[in-house]
Each structure stands twice: as structure tokens, then as C-alpha cells.
């Protein structure tokens, strides 16, 4: 069954892409619009499908894939099924980094890449601090250390909000933090896709380390793996994925937690086999959630990050409940 998971997820993703291209406030022929856009013809359908829906769809998929893959890699590295970009402080670190760009104009030389660059540094710093704080007994301490670092990054973010130059800037930042893939253009893919490719390749190159870590750091080392170097690479890859995803789309929580968890039984619980399915399912889930956002009655749109949190939080509660029963 494990072999069928990836092809099945590819098919699901294709279906959801189609659904996403077909969903919106106006009914537009998908194929005709796509062909018009590809041929460079300026028709209404071409503009709606190519410029608006395709960008939104692809951004949702790449953001979801980044978060799903980051979650799978973090859970494997930390040997903890509750590890997630937002529970380890990475998302808050990235948000803080990106918010600093909006407010203080740091890294202005990097132009449009500045938020992603700052997000990457924020996520990387948060993860490194969390690992340092968790120390050698990582499996047990990681969630507590993650909570501490999230709180710290959250406090710094609150300070940034507190000293917002004007209420509009604050409102803009808050809305961005809630997480969304709407009103973003294809140019954002120039940030997201390279980050997904590079971060994904780094993590993929360490998949055997992730598998051997199932039995702990000592066993992994005794099997010939350079644990320190490998774990730093995984942190770097995760920071790339989370940093850019959060910088472009804000906080879209729980994807990195839920997706690997739901898929794990389907791949025989093997951390190395979980990576690609998590990326595919993460992309499919975020894109599907975005379709749901668009299907809500017109008016004030619910933010994508709010929706994933509303779905994800009960799943998280269920996970904690199940973990607790294992210890009883």
C-alpha cells in the first residue's frame, strides 16, 4: 500500500488544482482560459485563470508543500510526533523576521526577497535557539523549548505591533499574520519555488539520517551518520521552507503537524518515506482549504490561516488525547 500513496496523492493534487482553477466568484472556462493565458492572448478568461487563480493555486500548493515537508522533517529529526513549524517556534520566528522588514525596512537591499530572507533568518534562529534550549534530551524537552521560543518571538512580534506607525499598518500586519494566499502574484513563486527546491533537496539528502534517527542519536551515529552536520542541514532546509512560506502567506498553522500525522500509518511509519507524501498532501490540503475559503458566502473573507487553525486545533487536541492514552 505504501507504494500507492505517492501516485494517489499526485492524483488528488491534480483534482484539487482543477477544482481550485474552476472555483471563484465568476464561472470561467478553465481550459480555454488556461490556453488563452499560455498563448499570451488577453481575454477575460485568460486573465482570471492565468493571473489570478493560477497564481493563487500555485502559491497555495507550494506553501502547503513547504509546510508539510517541514513538519515531516522536524518530526523525524526531533523524534516527536507533535513537532510542527509553529510548535517549535519556527513560524513565529519567521513572522517576526518578515514583520521587521515591513516595519523597519531591514534588508532593503534585497528588494522583494527581503521578507523571505528575513523570514528564513527568523525561522533558522528560532529553531537553533529551540534546539539549544532543549539540549540533549530533545524528545521530551522539544515542545517545552518550542513553546518558550514561540512565546519569546510572539512577545517581540507584539512589541512590533504595539509600536506600529499607524493603525492601518497594524491592521495590514495583523491580516497578513492571519495567513492567506489571496492577492499575491506569480512573482511570489520566484521566492517560494527555489526555497522549496533547495530546502526540499537538502532535507531529501538527509532522509537516511531521518530513518536511522528512529532508534535515537547514538544508533544513527553508530551507523556512520554525521548527526550534528545532518541535523544542521535539516534545520537549514526547514528554515528555508518555513521562512519563505510564512513570509509570503503569513501563519498557516497546523499543516505541518496534521499532514505527516495522517500519512504516517500509510507509509509504515517510516520517516524517510513520509517526506514526499507530506509535501504532496500539504500542497493539496492548503489548496483545498483555500478553495473552501473562496466558496464561503461573499462578504468578509475568512483568512486561510484561520480556517486551517479551526480544522487543525481539534486534530491537535485529538493527537494529545491519543498520546496521553498511550502513556496510561
Amino acid at each position, binding site marked *: 500500500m505504501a507504494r500507492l500513496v505517492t501516485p494517489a496523492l499526485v492524483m488528488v493534487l491534480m483534482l484539487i488544482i482543477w477544482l481550485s482553477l474552476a472555483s471563484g466568484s465568476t464561472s470561467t472556462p478553465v481550459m480555454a482560459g488556461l490556453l488563452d493565458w499560455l498563448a499570451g492572448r488577453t481575454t477575460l478568461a485568460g486573465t482570471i485563470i492565468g493571473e489570478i487563480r493560477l497564481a493563487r493555486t500555485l502559491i497555495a500548493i507550494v506553501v502547503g508543500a513547504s509546510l508539510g515537508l517541514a513538519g515531516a522533517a522536524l518530526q523525524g529529526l526531533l*523524534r*516527536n510526533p507533535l513537532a510542527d513549524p509553529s510548535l517549535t517556534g519556527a513560524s513565529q520566528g519567521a513572522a517576526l523576521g518578515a514583520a521587521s522588514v515591513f516595519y523597519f525596512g531591514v534588508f532593503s537591499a534585497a528588494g522583494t526577497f527581503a521578507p523571505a530572507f528575513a523570514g528564513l533568518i527568523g525561522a533558522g534562529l528560532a529553531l537553533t535557539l529551540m534546539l539549544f534550549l532543549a539540549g540533549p534530551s530533545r*524528545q521530551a524537552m522539544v515542545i517545552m523549548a518550542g513553546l518558550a521560543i514561540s512565546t519569546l518571538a510572539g512577545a517581540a512580534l507584539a512589541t512590533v505591533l504595539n509600536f506600529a506607525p499607524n493603525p492601518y499598518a497594524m491592521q495590514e500586519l495583523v491580516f497578513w499574520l492571519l495567513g492567506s494566499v489571496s492577492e499575491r502574484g506569480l512573482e511570489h513563486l520566484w521566492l517560494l519555488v527555489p526555497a522549496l527546491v533547495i530546502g526540499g533537496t537538502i532535507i531529501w539528502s538527509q532522509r*537516511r539520517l531521518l*530513518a*536511522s*534517527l*528512529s*532508534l*535515537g542519536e*547514538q*544508533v544513527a*551515529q*553508530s*551507523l*556512520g*551518520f*554525521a548527526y550534528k552536520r545532518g541535523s544542521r542541514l535539516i534545520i537549514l532546509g526547514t528554515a528555508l521552507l518555513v521562512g519563505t512560506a510564512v513570509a509570503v502567506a503569513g501563519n498557516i498553522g497546523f499543516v505541518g503537524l496534521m499532514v505527516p500525522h495522517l500519512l*504516517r500509518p500509510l507509509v*509504515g*511509519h*517510516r*520517516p524517510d518515506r513520509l517526506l514526499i507524501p507530506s509535501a504532496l498532501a500539504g500542497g493539496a490540503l492548503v489548496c483545498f482549504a483555500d478553495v473552501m475559503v473562496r466558496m464561503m458566502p461573499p462578504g468578509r473573507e475568512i483568512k486561510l490561516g484561520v480556517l486551517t487553525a479551526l480544522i487543525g486545533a481539534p486534530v491537535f487536541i485529538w493527537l494529545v488525547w491519543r498520546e496521553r492514552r498511550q502513556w496510561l
Partner: protein
Amino acid sequence: MALMSAQGVSVPGRLNDVSLDLQRGEVIGLVGPNGSGKSTLLQCLCGLMPFDGRVLLEGAEYSAIGANERARRLGFLPQSCQSAWSLTVRDVIALGRMPWGDEQSQAIESAAAQTGVTDWLSKKVDHLSGGQQARVWLARVLAGQPEVMLADEPVASLDLYHQLTVLDMLRRYANQSNGVIVSLHDLGLAARFCDRICLLDSGGVRASGTPEEVLTVDNIRTVYQVDAHIDLTTTPPIIFAKHVSTNL
């Protein structure tokens, strides 16, 4: 030439100038009280911990061998093992093939057969009992077909049946022209299964040699602060603590 040779291995505050030679076909038992440096020594020998001194594998320095080659030739069975995920027994054993970069089913099945876990290959490892799991962890090491096995208290929490079966497996594995260094708390088992014994105390070697040379009333009194009843002439050899020593 010795299969493995440790020369003046030291870790500040934990190990002090430990030397030993392991020959092919030999089981060496590391014994000593808690904190005497057994686990530290095994971790040094396995290359998991930096140390002063030299460890040679058939005359070659570790630095000349490379981590992957070393992992192929050395198997390490840690003191406490647990799988973070609900892997199948086959997948756990397959991890032992990591240094070879394959999941050769012949090696996996042979390791499973040697440890008697063939019937559970498709079972989840977390559904097995502690004793059954211990055999799976051992099979994982055997699947890598190492020449030297370093086992850190492999029978510490096992029942009598599994204590004997696990040590018997290590013994048979050494007999196939391999070498085993195993740390043990039970001196009777050490005398029974080991060719030579290295008695550690406060990070240094107190005595080293055959069980008869090392496991003496005097040595045990000095190191463990207990008076022991020792009879190595019986089968199996008998060693137990009578009472806490008063004449130190």
C-alpha cells in the same frame, strides 16, 4: 593482530588510560559499579565520543578508516533502545543495513533467524515485549554483519530466559570469528559467557584477564565494597554478594 585494540583511552573526568585488546572469536566482559566508565568506554570504542588515546581496528586508526567503513565493521547496541515510531520488525532490522546502503533481504532474514524473530518480521516493534524487543535490537546490529559488536548492558532489564538467550547469541556470534565487548552487571553471567573480563573502577582498569584472575574476593571487595561468595568451578559459575563489606 588484535581485531580491536584500545591504547590509553582517556576522557577527562570519566576514563583514565584504559587499554585492551580484542581477538577474533573472543567475548570481553566489561564489569564494574555504576559510574565506573563502562558505557563511556564503549562509546569511545564505537567512535561516538571524542577521547584521548588510540583505538585501532586491525591495526588501522579510526581516522584512517572513515565513518561509513567503521559503521560496517562495528556494531553498537546501546543501553536503552526505543523506536520513536511504530516501525515493523523488518524495518527496524533493515536499519542495520544503512552503512551498506541497501536493504538486502538475505542479511535481514538471516539476522532475524539468528535471533529467533522471524515470526514477527511484519509485526510492529512496539507491540512486542521488552525481551522480544531486545532480540530485535540485536538482530538490527547483526544485519549489518559487523566484525566487532559493542553491547552496552544488553540484558539489564531482561528476564532470566532472555538474559541467557541474548548472551548465548552474542557468544555464538563471537564464535563465527567475530569479536564482542559487552558490559554486564551480573558477574555470574560475565564469568559464564566471557573469555576475558575487564574490571573497571572510577574510570580506570582495576584488573583484566580471565574470569578466574579478575573475579576474586579481594577485587570485588575493593571495587564493589561487598563481600562475595565466588565459585567459578561449578557450571554455571556462581558469584553473589553476601553482604556489604565491613573491613575496608
